[in-house]
């Protein structure tokens, strides 16, 4: 029973990963339909899922995957061309597959009747697509009849090997009735045929008439051969010009618009449904996040390696303590051992942390799907370009950053991008581009979302900010400061709620989410050229560099990212404004003083700033001086949560254990700065 469960959980992990591979591959295949290696990878992923699921008795899942595999096999053998219809169908099937595996993971039964439609459509795809289309131009020998041959036999021969979809006889060479010779052939034909045979088989039909005739056979490659598009057929036949089709397609309306026009449904209902539809897409997208973690074997091996070294150190210490080896208890020996221990400790810490690190690509690759579906809803064509997918981020951070990224990307498509028509009109390429870039710099990871849309409207923001009472006027604000106003609560420039974004969840939520990860978000925009949103995130949440300070009998840790400097002010630099607000003059800049002991309700050893220490901290350009008794030093600390038994504790981000074994609280600097209202 245990074995069964274990194998099943391995399968779930594997299948999920493979499904993502299939999904990513399919999306790439749309752009590079000829990439053999890509097709092989997707095929192999489906093949593996099929094989392993069958071996552990998941017959329905295996059977369904077999259907997907068959189509991929045909693509691999070049019998199918991966057009939009085919890729959409396969994406839908891989979604179902994902649902099956998800319900397997949560031990819920899966309703396989859900797959029926998909199975039927995949079957259709397979049957139709096996057929290839050929166009034949047949200009027969004028003397064909004299040879005892009949072109009608040729046509009949073609009908034997496939479906003749179009025959057009050209009569332009037929002379006047008086000049007609009954044994001369004046006609020529254009024939289209759909067949599963090869070109050589078709040529064989013409074997006897080849001499003296002009026969041209060429394969017609349509995006989806199964269903030739009406427009294409008309153009092929020469009935309609390609430009006219393009013109007609432009005025073609969406289902929703038609229904509204015929008064079958209110426009608001359509909007609401489209809204619901995209919500559903996003919901589906979110559900695909797994709670297990896959670790690169190299990382694990490295960790085990270091632990091995640790064991050696342990036995060396044992020798020294028990005096039963060559190692004697000399200061040099102890010193050497101690420094080795220190190195190994640091190694283990780094190595253990790296186990939690995942490449951002795991989240990124799902965005291409999102962009494809969201931009399909509107008259916008958007291409997502990703870079730096290999950049690693803590799994916890990665999971929490997914939602804000979804929101930002949605925003970029909805508010940032112009429609293709608008773009063409202003000389931009009809395809909009969103760049999603990740890179590491120092202890931070940066994720940038850059679009080439219309940029933010500076005047509109100012107008809105004044209307909402966020600012009084725009004087003295830099452009960047104005653009970043949109991150303030209750700020939304979209006048109407739209189907993709602007559902009342504003940019302030995005900012809050990112800041809860100790991250920062910034926005730059150039009107008409585009907008870049840059998110800065710490590599990990669990370990921070902290400045340990003393206050009363307790030690506290201030995250070093918030600290600018620490100093002991001179007595004359401590001032009181309006007899209320205390400030410290730091080289000419007056910075408000927060007496931490009042805030934390502690009896301090020193109350006079000129005898104690002030730590200058900042958060979002707001600077404050925190009054503490003394400094201990800077060290890395592991933040632990306070636990659920505690009510919400203000001003404290968590707890940690110091080098001396004592517990210290980690201060929440942004919280303190927000909570202490200054009575100026």
């Amino acid at each position, binding site marked *: 029973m245990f074995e069964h469960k274990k*194998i099943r959980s391995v399968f779930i992990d594997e299948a999920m990963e493979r499904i993502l591979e299939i999904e990513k591959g399919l999306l790439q295949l749309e752009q590079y339909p000829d990439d053999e290696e890509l097709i092989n990878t997707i095929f*192999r992923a489906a093949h*593996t899922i099929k*094989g392993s699921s069958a*071996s*552990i*008795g998941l017959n329905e899942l*295996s059977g369904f995957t077999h259907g997907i595999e068959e189509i991929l096999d045909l693509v691999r053998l070049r019998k199918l061309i991966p057009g939009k219809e085919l890729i959409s169908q396969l994406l839908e099937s891989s979604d179902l597959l994902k649902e099956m595996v998800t319900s397997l993971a949560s031990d819920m039964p899966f309703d396989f009747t859900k797959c029926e439609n998909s199975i039927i459509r995949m079957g259709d795809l397979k049957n139709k697509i096996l057929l290839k289309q050929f166009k034949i131009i047949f200009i027969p020998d004028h003397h064909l009849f004299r040879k005892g041959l009949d072109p009608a036999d040729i046509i009949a021969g073609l009908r034997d090997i496939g479906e003749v979809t179009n025959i057009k006889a050209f009569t332009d060479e037929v002379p006047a009735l008086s000049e007609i010779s009954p044994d001369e052939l004046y006609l020529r034909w254009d024939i289209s045929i759909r067949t599963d045979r090869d070109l050589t088989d078709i040529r064989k039909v013409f074997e006897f008439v080849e001499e003296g005739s002009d026969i041209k056979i060429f394969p017609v490659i349509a995006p989806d051969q199964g269903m030739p598009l009406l427009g294409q057929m008309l153009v092929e036949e020469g009935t309609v010009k390609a430009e006219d089709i393009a013109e007609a397609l432009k005025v073609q309306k969406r289902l929703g618009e038609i229904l509204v026009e015929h008064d079958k449904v209110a426009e608001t209902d359509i909007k609401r449904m489209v809204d619901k539809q995209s919500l559903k897409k996003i919901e589906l997208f979110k559900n695909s996040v797994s709670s297990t973690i896959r670790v690169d074997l190299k990382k694990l091996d490295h960790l085990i390696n270091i632990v091995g070294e640790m064991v050696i150190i342990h036995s060396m210490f044992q020798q020294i303590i028990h005096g039963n080896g060559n190692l004697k208890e000399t200061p040099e020996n102890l010193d050497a051992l101690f420094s080795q221990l220190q190195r190994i400790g640091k190694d283990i810490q780094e190595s253990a942390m790296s186990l939690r690190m995942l490449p951002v690509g795991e989240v990124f690759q799902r965005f291409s799907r999102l962009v494809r579906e969201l931009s399909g809803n509107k008259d916008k064509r958007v291409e997502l370009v990703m870079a730096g997918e290999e950049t690693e981020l803590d799994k916890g951070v990665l999971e929490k950053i997914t939602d804000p990224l979804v929101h930002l990307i949605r925003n970029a498509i909805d508010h940032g991008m112009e429609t293709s028509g608008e773009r063409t009109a202003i000389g931009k390429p009809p395809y909009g581009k969103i760049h999603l870039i990740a890179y590491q710099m120092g202890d931070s990871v940066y994720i940038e979302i850059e679009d080439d849309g219309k940029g933010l409207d500076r005047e509109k923001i100012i107008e809105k900010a004044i209307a909402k009472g966020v600012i009084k006027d725009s004087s003295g604000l830099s452009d960047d400061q104005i653009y970043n106003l949109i991150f303030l609560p209750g700020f939304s420039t979209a006048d109407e709620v739209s189907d993709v974004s602007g559902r009342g969840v504003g940019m302030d939520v995005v900012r809050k989410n990112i800041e809860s990860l100790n991250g920062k978000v910034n926005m730059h925009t150039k009107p008409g050229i585009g907008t870049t949103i840059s998110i800065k995130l710490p590599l990990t949440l669990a370990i921070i560099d902290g400045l340990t300070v003393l206050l009363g009998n307790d030690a506290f840790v201030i995250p070093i990212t918030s600290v600018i400097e620490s100093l002991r002010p001179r007595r004359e630099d401590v001032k009181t404004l309006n007899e209320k607000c205390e400030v410290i003059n730091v080289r000419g800049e007056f910075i408000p003083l927060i007496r931490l002991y009042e805030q934390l309700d502690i009896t301090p050893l020193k109350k006079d700033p000129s005898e104690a220490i002030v730590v200058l901290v900042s958060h979002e350009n707001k600077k404050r001086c925190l009054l503490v008794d003394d400094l201990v030093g800077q060290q890395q600390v592991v933040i632990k949560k306070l636990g659920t038994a505690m009510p919400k504790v203000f001003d404290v981000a968590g707890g940690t254990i110091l080098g001396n074994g004592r517990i210290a609280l980690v201060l929440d600097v942004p919280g303190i700065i927000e909570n202490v209202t200054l009575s100026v």
Partner: protein
Amino acid sequence: MPNILVVEDSPTMRQLISFAMKRIPNSHVIEATDGVDALKKMSSEKVDLILADINMPVMDGLKLVSLVRGNPTYKEIPIIIITTEGAEEDRKRALSIGANSYLPKPIQTQELIRLVNSYLTKQ
């Protein structure tokens, strides 16, 4: 103590086979994810029997069979190929280039144990 080298790119299949092999007394399973990995493992550990999948990335099972058979040190090691149901072509090719036997997917545990046992006792 027979060492059984399982060459499979699917972790599920590796796990499944490893569990099955536990029922063969004293046997020890060495896992490899593809042909290249298998050859690497073989150079550092003695292998008594190879169970290999055909369709794998980097180096597939057929290539592995021909390389193992072409190497004087390894050429006597029995190889059982795991094939997809109905893949007659692959099966024939594997046998023709020197695989000893084959096992179709989905794997039947009893059949797998019987087959492996029969080759281990032959040695």
